């Protein structure tokens, strides 16, 4: 016999999976469009705002479940983790939106600022990969995938710093292009950070262990 709280937990996971799908779509569209210089600002804005609204629904539902059932153990860990993950997914949307805003604000085409020597495409692919992995980890409650996020995050950091170094080395770069690139890679790096938070939440949800997936590269060096 299922418990009363199970109905609420089911609703919560449905909401989260819906957010996951939308977040993945939003990041993907934003990143691809940046690389191709396409205008998707309005569409991404609407999706990002939808993610925020869904995140608020997750929070409301979670608080309701806490108030009604005083959950403990894995139930409590699930609710806490889902609240955090919902926030992280909404941040995916927000950074995706910010990326579509860069060239509008600076009045420059992003494609004009992509230099062959800059490993920005690689960073872009890795961030799309980490986002997909994080959403799959949520869907499957998979600790293995969650740990893989930590590995990809290290790779993202390496390419991010490489991009920074290359940007500093660029002699002939306009201020607008410098800022465009800086903002873009910075937003990508932040998206990867949120993917790590999601991985940490999944590990906590499943095992009860609180571990950090972030900054391993910095600690190890």
């Amino acid at each position, binding site marked *: 016999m299922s*418990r009363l*709280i199970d109905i609420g937990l089911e609703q919560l996971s449905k909401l989260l999976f819906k957010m996951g799908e939308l977040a993945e779509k939003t990041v993907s569209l934003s990143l691809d469009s940046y690389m191709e210089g396409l205008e998707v600002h309005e569409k991404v804005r609407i999706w990002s705002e939808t993610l925020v609204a869904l995140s608020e629904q997750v929070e409301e539902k979670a608080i309701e479940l806490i108030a009604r059932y*005083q*959950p*403990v*153990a*894995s*139930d*409590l*860990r699930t609710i806490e983790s889902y609240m955090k993950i919902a926030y992280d997914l909404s941040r995916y949307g927000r950074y995706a939106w910010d990326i579509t805003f860069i060239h509008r604000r600076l009045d420059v085409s992003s494609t004009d600022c992509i230099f062959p020597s800059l490993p920005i495409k690689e960073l872009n692919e890795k961030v799309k990969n980490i986002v997909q992995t994080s959403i799959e980890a949520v869907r499957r409650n998979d600790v293995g995938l969650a740990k893989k996020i930590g590995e990809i995050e290290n790779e993202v950091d390496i390419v991010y710093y490489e991009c920074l170094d290359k940007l500093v080395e660029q002699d002939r770069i306009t201020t607008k292009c410098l800022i465009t690139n800086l903002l873009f890679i910075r937003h990508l790096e932040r998206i990867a950070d949120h993917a790590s938070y999601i991985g940490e939440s999944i590990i906590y949800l499943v095992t*009860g262990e609180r571990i950090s997936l972030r900054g391993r590269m910095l600690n190890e060096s």
Partner: protein
Amino acid sequence: MSYKIEIEDLNAWFGNNHVLTDINMKIRENAVTAIIGPSGCGKTTLIRCLNRMHELVPGARISGRVLLDGQDVYGNGVDPVTVRRRIGMVFQKPNPFPMMSVYDNVAAGLKLNGMKDKRRLDETVEKSLELAILWDEVKKELDKSGASLSGGQQQRLCIARALAVEPEVILMDEPCSALDPTATAKIEKLIRMLGKDYTVIIVTHNMQQAARVADFTAFLYLGELVEYGDTSSVFQNPRNKLTENYITGKFG
């Protein structure tokens, strides 16, 4: 933090019914320890073994040791009455002596122990009622019958009665199960306060109550100690699947 009670290889029976199996448990001094578990798992029997009340039931027996400050309460020559004075008990249903006044309910144990000095009696009764957070509510009606108080007040009167003889350990067997939420909240606050100066062991069906009041929680199932640890770990991240299933309501 040191251990007040150490339970070693404790087994208990009612006739042929083996109700506790090989319990080993160290109980911290000046802390609240909760014992949770489904009905019939041996919670009440366990605490009744600690102050030798289990043996009062015909056909009941135990094996193993219960050390109070390192001394076995079942050792040769140990007087069970002395043990019960050092380890007081509060029961599920408030049970003030119905024919006695509030004052006499608290003073009864002291008088039995031979205290006759009226001033000392007065002081101890007041102090015990204050400790039980009842003094302000009854100080003008000390002659009133204990049975005329509300359920919550009666339970605090019973706690005051237990405290009056200055026990070192207080056992509480479902102390709030007959009380409404307001009275329960008062008793829970009291339990937490008492846990600073006394070793409190509480048996409860109500897991949220254990989570609210206890520093440590033990989960008992079918007479065995399944898990024992600090309350936040047990309720956030239990090590044993049985504990997880019980506290999340998947069985029990």
